[in-house]
Every structure is written in C-alpha cells, then in structure tokens.
C-alpha cells in the first residue's frame, strides 16, 4: 500500500493523551497569532496587492496588457520551456528512482547527492555554468558552431536551465515511495513471465501514479516561475528568449507598473490553479487508499 510523504502530515491535530495537561492558553494564542500574522504579511498581503494593482486601471487595460503580442510570445515560450522541462524530468526522475530503489550499484550515494544539488545551488551559478560550457567562449563552442546548434541565448538553453533547477522535484518524490514499497510484487511478476513494460505499466505505475502526478504538478509550478538561471542564459531578446517572469521584470523596469502586475496576475492565477490541482490529487489519492484498505 502506497504511502506518500505528503500524506503523513494530517491537518487535524492529534488529540492530547488523557491526563495530559492542556498547554498554557496564552502560548497557544501567541503561536496561532504569530503564524497568522506571518502568513498575512509575507504571503497574503503582497498577493492581494498584485491582484489589485493588476486591475488598478480597469479591466480593459488588464486585457490589453495580457493580450499584448510580447506577453503572448513570452507565455508561449514559458509553456514550451515548462512542458519540455517537466517531460525530461519525469523520464529522468522515473529512471533514477527506479534505478536507486531496485538495484544496488556503486555511486548510489553520489547520484542522490547530485539530484539534490539544484536545491542547494544558487540559480545564477546554474545559468553561468551553461554559458561557460555552451557559450561562444565555452569549450563546446567549436562543436556547436560546426553543427549550427544554438544553446545559450536560445530556447534550448532556457529549457536546459529550467531542467537543471527542477531536477529534484520528480526524482525526490518517487524514490522514497519506491524504496518503501520494496520490489516483491515486481519479482513475482518476473517469475510469472511478465516483460519489463508490462511490469512497469501494470505493477509499478499504479502504485506510484499519485506521487508521480503530484510531483509533476509541483515541477510544472516551479518551472513556470523560474527566473534566476533563465535570466542568465536568456539574452533578453524580446519575443524570442523572454519568458513570462523575465517579461514581468522588463515591464516593471519600463515604468509599466500596471502591465507588470497584470502579467504577474497570470502567474499568480496559474499557481492557484496548480495548487488546487494538487489538493484535488491529494484528496482523490486518499479516498482511493481508504477504499483499498476496506
């Protein structure tokens, strides 16, 4: 039975054991107030400001900003980048999680550490290493020139930088699930003569599908909003290498505050949709799990 790590934390508090003395109510109130104020100041208020600024000069202006040709091109580029990065990371994440949980091999620890690296490394480094490797002064340059391949300051560079930053999302979610479950069922399937693909589709995938969907959703959210690494490899060519977050910065620097906030609102709304999707996935997977138990 699959247990994902996000399900371990249930929102309803565990009741105190009988005889346990109630905590000081003052401390309780202070803690609740602190968390609420913190959330309000850091998250809710700034987001409300974004939305209100976005519509600050009326619906018509909002619509004009959002349907501007450069905004649409930036949105399109962000979608391509996100889609490619999520696809690549899903394939890689499945492969890595499978390998790490099924086989014992040298360099296992190394692989896990490497997968975690993007969480720890600053995005500007992520961008610069691509410039230094694939840029005009990079060591791959003569090969790339010969074959007329453009990586940095073009869409491939944006995709690679985004993949780099979002690598951990799928793999890190799947590894614990696969490790916790062990490989007994797969071994049984092998004994019964099932091929690799059959085992994957009919034995493994059904167990990890919710964790997979969940991680893909988070990965997409992060990829869509990626700014730092992409900013370094972009070259900021309008309508060519400008993703939505980069476009927002440009609008802001051009004194088009309301347009910047209008386009920000697209990203904020996307995040809300993605978070809603995540809750729905959590809800369905829990219900399915309960019915499995019965």
């Amino acid at each position: 039975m699959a247990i994902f790590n996000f399900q371990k934390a249930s929102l309803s508090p565990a009741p105190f054991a009988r005889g346990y003395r109630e905590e000081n109510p003052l401390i309780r109130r202070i803690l609740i107030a602190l968390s609420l104020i913190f959330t309000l100041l850091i998250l809710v208020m700034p987001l409300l400001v974004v939305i209100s600024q976005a519509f600050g000069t009326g619906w018509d202006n909002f619509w004009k900003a959002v349907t501007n040709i450069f905004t649409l091109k930036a949105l399109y580029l962000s979608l391509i980048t996100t889609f490619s990065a999520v696809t690549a990371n899903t394939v890689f994440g499945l492969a890595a999680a499978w390998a790490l949980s099924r086989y014992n091999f040298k360099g296992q620890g190394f692989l896990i550490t490497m997968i975690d690296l993007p969480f720890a490394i600053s995005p500007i480094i992520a961008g610069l290493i691509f410039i230094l490797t694939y840029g005009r002064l990079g060591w791959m340059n003569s090969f790339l020139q010969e074959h007329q391949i453009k990586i940095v300051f073009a869409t491939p560079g944006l995709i690679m930088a985004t993949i780099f930053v979002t690598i951990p999302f799928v793999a890190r979610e799947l590894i614990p699930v696969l490790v916790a479950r062990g490989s007994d069922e797969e071994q049984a399937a092998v004994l019964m003569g099932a091929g690799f693909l059959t085992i994957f589709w009919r034995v493994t995938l059904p167990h990890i599908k919710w964790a997979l969907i969940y991680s893909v959703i988070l990965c997409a959210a992060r990829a869509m909003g990626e700014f730092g690494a992409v900013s370094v490899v972009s070259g900021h060519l309008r309508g060519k290498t400008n993703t939505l977050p980069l476009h927002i910065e440009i609008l802001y620097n051009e004194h088009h505050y309301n347009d910047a906030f209008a386009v920000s609102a697209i990203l904020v709304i996307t995040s809300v949709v993605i978070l809603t999707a995540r809750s729905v996935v959590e809800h369905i997977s829990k219900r399915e799990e309960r019915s499995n138990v019965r």
Partner: protein
Amino acid sequence: MFKSFISVMALAALLVFAAPVLADRELINVSYDPTRELYEVYNAAFQKHWLKEKNEKVTVVQSHGGSGKQARSVIEGNEADVVTLALAIDITAIEDAGLIKSGWQSRLPNNSSPYTSTIVFLVRSGNPKNIKDWGDLAKDGIGVITPNPKTSGGARWNYLAAWAWADKEYNHDEKAIIKYIKKVFDNVLVLDSGARGSTNTFVQNGQGDVLLAWENEAYLSLAERPGELEIVTPPTSILAEPPVAVVDVYVDKKGTRELATEYLKYLYSDEGQRIAGNHYYRPSNPEILKEFTKYFYLSLKLITIDDPLFGGWAKAQKYHFSDGGIFDQIYTK
C-alpha cells in the same frame, strides 16, 4: 483519472508545439536600459522605411539591460546584429573579443553616436534646497542620489562631470578636486547599482534632494510625475556619446550586413534624429537639435571624454574607476 491526466498532457504538447511560427527577416538590436522607448518607436519607423526601399518585411528584436552586462552577453554568443550601448568602452570590449573590426567608431558620423545626452540635476518641485551648480552638491545637508560608478555607465558620467567642473573651479589642483568629490559622495544617501534603480529611489521612494541623471531619464521622470519634479541644467556638464556599431562576425554569419548597416545609418536621417529628440536625446544633427530647444538648454558648456583632462575612456576608466583608482580611494574613506 490517470489516463485523462496523460491525455491532458498530450493535448498541452500539441498546443505548445503546433503554434504558428513567424518568419520575417530579423534583426537583433542589443541595447542598454534607458533606450527601450526610443527603439520601440524607431523600429516601427525603420520597418516602414525598409519596406518602402527594399519591399521586404523586417522584425527588429530588442534586448535591454545594463550596458556592461549586455556587451558581455554579445561576447558570450548572444548574436546581435547591431549593438547600441551606453559607453564606447563596452563596444571596445566586444571588439577585443574579436567580434567587431577595429576602427568601428569612425565608420559612422559623430564618433558613431547618432544622438548624445548629458548629465543634469533632477530636484523636487520649486528646488527647495536651491541647487544650481555642481558646487552645491558638496554643501552640508544636501542628500545626493547617484548610482555606483563601479557598476553603472551613467554614474561614471556623473562623476566625471563633477570632476570637470571642479577642475576648472579649483584651477587643476587635484587635491582640492578630490576633496570636493569626496564631499559629494559623503552626501550620497543611496548608491544603487544602475541608473533606473537610482531614478526609482529618488522618484518613487522620495529619497534625497537631488538626483544626478541622464537628461533623457530626467525628462521621462518629469513626464511620469507631472508637477512634482523639476530639471536643473548646470552651466557645465559632460557630453555623453552613446555609440552604435554593427557586429561584424555575426552579420557576416547571418548575411544581414546590408540590413544592419542601414538600420544604424537611418538613425542619422531626419526622421531618426527627430525620434531621438522626441525621446529627449540630443540629436547629433545641429539643424534638428534646434527644433528641440524647448527641452534642451543649448548654451551649456559640454566637455567630452576625449578632452585632455580625461584623455579618452580607456585612460579615464583606469585612472578613476579601476580597483584602487581614485574612486576607490575616495569611497573607502
């Protein structure tokens, strides 16, 4: 549920990759921060001009950022057909990387600068601290806003303009000049890394009494905040010449030399010059400049970077702004 998830992803893929691709002739202009509005208008004009002359549609792709950063991206492989930057030294860096042939600055008139600008003072409406000339910046109780000369092109012009005034005022006595410059930087409240950052500090956040600004940025702020600010043009200032150049290696690779050359030449046409004037850049054509006397105070004395006082960008850069240079000595106190 899982199957429908997969079909949603497939549909997304279809939408993403099936979108139409435009295939006009393309020209990439890598420029610096304050020229965004100027080139938006100029590009539209040039597109019409090229369509009329060659019966060919052309799309101009714009890129803006700090001048030094933009030069860096071209050196690293951002394949700009033309660069239109803040300082000649940034284009020289691209030349040193082997992408632009030497002698580029004499290929076009006026040191390859189709428009010029200068440094002026932006003050609060009514000029409450009565700031008129460079000497006033060193007075006690004056809050000065300028970007950092180590990172900003505009800030270097600010510094050199102050230096030029002091050189005359103190009769070439370098000790006295340095003392004055130190006093000015002691009065600096916020040292942002770029010109737009300083403008925001002064205009949006209301910090300081005077902003040392590009003339064109100052006029943009005036238009943004009518009635709150005013411009003071000091009797002497510096002539800033933002140059333009064709990036030889890239245009030859892409076969866009003719288009790129015409794009820069058209900046010198009457139409190009008027567009520059409308965006508060001083047109290099003196006849067209006269049409804009309502903005530009023409009788101010402008010193160039090639004046013996500075001896060109390479020398000024090394003497004033390199590590351990005069600015470092002043600012580390």
